[in-house]
């Protein structure tokens, strides 16, 4: 039992905006004062400290074949020693990290939940093995659907019943949490050496288009009423002019509504927010996107903020990765995966003086600033945009124009004409950045017990050494930036895991997965499953997927 005393609480979901109050914890949950025996509580003095829910990472590449191939191909990344073996595991990694390092570093920043954003379905047992090697955090994984031949087939047949059954089957088999789409149709076209360019380009054999795939999959996701909305990595990622495709994609769901969450989450939008016709005249399309998102009532995004320095591009968008390899001449890994899709990996470095990199950096911030704080989530799309450990930098930047002005001095002047960042006066409040890193991602993911401090919530709590009623983030940005890097406490399921920025305990979190199989009739797709596994897969149908008993601490969420 914990008694967190006299903290200054910001809890956007419950409308608490810097109130001095006590929080009580029992059996890993936040409870009413009357539920605990105060004399048995461990008391944490949170006077003059900010008390918030543990951070929720909704888009990061924390587990599976991509991140692991990234480690293997980049030993230069692994040569930074973060922790020597002793009470805790040895941890190495510069921007890429070992699995134990991922758990430790998120916790050391006050984050307690993280979602793997793209898991190749046939690789799901690998994804889960790595998730199981990440300590402390609660986790989940999103299997990728947008180039899976079953999806092509059922979309081309306009058979919603089968598509819904298939999605439920696939999420259960992969022990996944929701539906991810990556460059729908484009990765399949890569198998023939090309890519889709518009939402109306056709996929070979099936004749379906990205427009149809996205629309039908969102419909199915809504009919199943899965906790998380469809999570999309748009077509044309990394192509100047692509902001139009992004907005067109968003328009596909206009008129659709879900009372609990958005119906479409568009991810790492920075990479999909370019205006212009080439890298020579590229400029920001963030304002247009922000306008659309602010107006819409069913769309959220995350930033995909680049951080200057090293990064590793790794996505399920295999054709984009090849383009990047050609563009910058760096190493390139590729993985075409059965009849499911593909992936690629390319090391990159974002340089402040490089006009394009500086523009990308500016666009990420524009999105964060121009979009309402209940529609944009903080992310670097780790490790694509750089380290997640720089979230405190992003938060501080969003809250301080002065900090941005100072940073703008060191980046390429190209951003002055190609983006609106220098002219933006907006300064997000602490309340807003807490929302953007806690309650909003939890809401989009449909994780009711995450991202807030109300009674019944999981006791995942971060306490920082700043008093929101005294600090001026606009002027004291250094202080804010430092404070978020070093929580006074991180508490996971009621246990103190970090104190004064140092790890003090290693615990093991749960892996959430969603079971919607009761909502559909599996009969509908039996014959199709058998046919495709027999003809096009190289594993037997029965050997595909993950059994719950193989997962260390599974937590099943049944959808009814």
């Amino acid at each position, binding site marked *: 039992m914990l008694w967190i005393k006299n903290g200054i609480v910001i809890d956007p979901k419950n409308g608490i905006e810097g109130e001095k109050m006590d929080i009580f914890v029992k059996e890993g949950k936040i409870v009413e004062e009357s539920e605990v025996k105060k004399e048995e509580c461990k008391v944490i003095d949170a006077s003059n400290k900010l008390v918030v829910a543990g951070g929720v990472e909704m888009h990061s590449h924390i587990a599976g074949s991509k991140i692991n191939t990234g*480690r293997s*191909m980049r030993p230069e990344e*692994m040569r930074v020693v973060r922790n*020597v*073996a002793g009470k805790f595991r040895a941890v190495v990694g510069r921007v890429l990290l*070992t699995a134990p390092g991922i758990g430790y570093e998120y916790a050391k920043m006050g984050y307690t939940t993280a979602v793997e954003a793209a898991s190749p379905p046939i690789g799901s047992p690998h994804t889960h093995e*790595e998730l199981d090697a990440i300590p402390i955090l609660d986790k989940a994984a999103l299997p990728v659907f947008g180039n899976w031949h079953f999806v092509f087939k059922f979309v081309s047949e306009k058979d919603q019943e089968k598509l819904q059954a298939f999605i439920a089957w696939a999420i259960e088999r992969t022990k996944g949490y929701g539906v991810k789409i990556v460059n729908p149709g484009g990765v399949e076209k890569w198998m023939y050496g090309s890519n889709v360019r518009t939402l109306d380009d056709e996929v070979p054999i099936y004749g379906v288009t990205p427009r149809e795939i996205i629309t039908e999959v969102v419909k199915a996701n809504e009919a199943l009423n899965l906790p998380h909305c469809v999570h999309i990595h748009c077509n044309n990622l990394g192509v100047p002019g692509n902001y139009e495709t992004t907005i067109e994609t968003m328009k596909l769901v206009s008129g659709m509504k879900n009372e609990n969450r958005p119906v479409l989450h568009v991810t790492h939008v920075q990479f999909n927010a370019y205006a212009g016709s080439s890298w020579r005249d590229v400029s920001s399309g963030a304002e247009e996107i922000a306008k659309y998102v602010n107006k819409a009532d069913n769309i959220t995004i995350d930033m995909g903020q680049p951080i200057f320095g090293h990064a590793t591009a790794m996505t399920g968008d295999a054709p984009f990765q*090849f383009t990047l390899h050609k563009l910058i001449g760096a190493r390139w*890994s*590729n993985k075409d995966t059965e009849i499911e899709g593909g992936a690629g990996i390319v090391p990159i470095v974002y340089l402040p003086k490089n006009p394009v990199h500086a523009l990308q950096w500016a666009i990420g911030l524009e999105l964060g600033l121009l979009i309402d704080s209940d529609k944009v989530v903080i992310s670097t799309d780790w490790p694509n945009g750089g380290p997640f450990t720089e979230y405190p930098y992003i938060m501080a930047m969003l809250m301080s124009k002065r900090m941005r002005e100072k940073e703008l001095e060191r980046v390429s002047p190209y951003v002055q004409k190609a983006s609106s960042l220098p002219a933006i006066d907006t300064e997000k409040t602490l309340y807003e950045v807490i929302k953007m890193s806690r309650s909003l991602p939890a809401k989009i993911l449909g994780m009711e017990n995450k991202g807030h401090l109300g009674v019944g919530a999981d006791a995942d709590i971060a306490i920082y050494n700043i008093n929101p009623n005294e600090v001026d983030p606009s002027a004291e940005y250094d202080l804010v930036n430092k404070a978020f890097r070093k929580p006074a406490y991180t508490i996971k399921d009621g246990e103190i895991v970090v104190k004064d920025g140092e790890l003090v305990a290693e615990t093991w979190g749960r892996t959430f997965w969603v079971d919607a199989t009761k909502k559909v009739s599996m009969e509908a797709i039996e014959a199709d499953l058998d046919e495709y596994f027999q003809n096009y897969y190289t594993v037997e149908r029965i050997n595909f997927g993950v059994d719950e008993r193989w997962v260390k601490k599974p937590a099943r969420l049944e959808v009814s």
Partner: protein
Amino acid sequence: MENVVCTFCGSVCDDGVFEDGDVRKLCALGKSKFSKKERIKAPMIDGKEVSYEEAIEKAAEILVEAKRPLLYGWASTVNEAIRLGVLIAEKVGGIYDQCASVCHAPGTLALIEEGVPGGTLGSVKNRADVVIFWGANPVEAHPRHPTRYSVMAKGLLIKDRKNRKVVVIDVRETKTAKLADIFVQIKPGYDYAIISALRAIVKGEKIEADEVGGVPVEKLYELAELMMNAKYGVIFYGLGVTQSRGRDRNVENAIKLVQQLNRKTRWVIWPMRGHYNVVGAGEVPAWEVGYQFAIDFSRGYPRFSPAEFTAVEALVRRDCDAALIIASDPAAHFPRKAVEHLKKIPVIQIDPHPNLTTLLSNVVIPSAIAGLEAEGSVYRMDGIVLRVKKLVETEYWSDVQILEKMYEEVVKKVG
């Protein structure tokens, strides 16, 4: 029981049928894995039979007392066991190395240099209209690879063997060469030069020689033409590429060829990995500690250095003072100087079957056979995970049980 997963080679076929102690549908190599063979009868310390607990306690003592123990093998056990091995190596400040360091590690070095443009075996089965085996002989080493994945396999775009051209490049006419449409015999040690010539032709440059590595230039032009005209091609390379002159540079060069080909059409390249879970023996340490093989923990954190910390290097330099050998037989396969040092230091063996290494081991711990008597996850040669099954009961402890207990003992001793 149907859909049994085979634990012999990197093909990890998952369609075996197991009945009355016999297995059907698998190849002769696979069947041998499931048939009765000589077993190590009981745990032993210096030749004397002891209990599992005693043997494991002794093993833990050896590992903890050593300054730098070598933990080697791992390619023929499950991921769960490998993970424990990595954790033990980290705890005792030892070296973790695995069988790849004497077979396909040059491919990992090439991955570090250039990345690997690859695909799963299912991509090949469904799409590949040109398949090249380079220094690889699957008919003898991965017998069902050609039928299941690469030569005769049918799929989405390839409906018939006639839709596919198969090329074998090797120093001798192997059994696989007999399946091929085109066989290119090359002079031993000339892989690099031939790949360079192909790169030049694909780039549009002229070769000013009559032959390269024993291959007439016209034949190389034909081959390059075939590659450029493929819709989806694959190069499967074997030990003929990684263990001949040039090693990792051969693979790197072939990867550069594939990079270039992808500017014109689609190509992938992939190693023909040998043991059924040699991929897992690299993947597991990569996520736990950042590297695939040749990892030293003597400073309390992982360091990767293939020239220092592979098993052979550490043994030849006498740079390890104890060894745990699991699911492997270095006494039979390592160079003489390495084996000599192995004879001098305390050795712990974990294996279902006796082999030459048993003869020089101080502590011998027999284990259950993964895929027959114990379950766990393994990585097929293309990184696809499969769960091997427990089909029969056994008195033997599994590798996971043994290593869990050993880890516990090690933690007790070092804290």
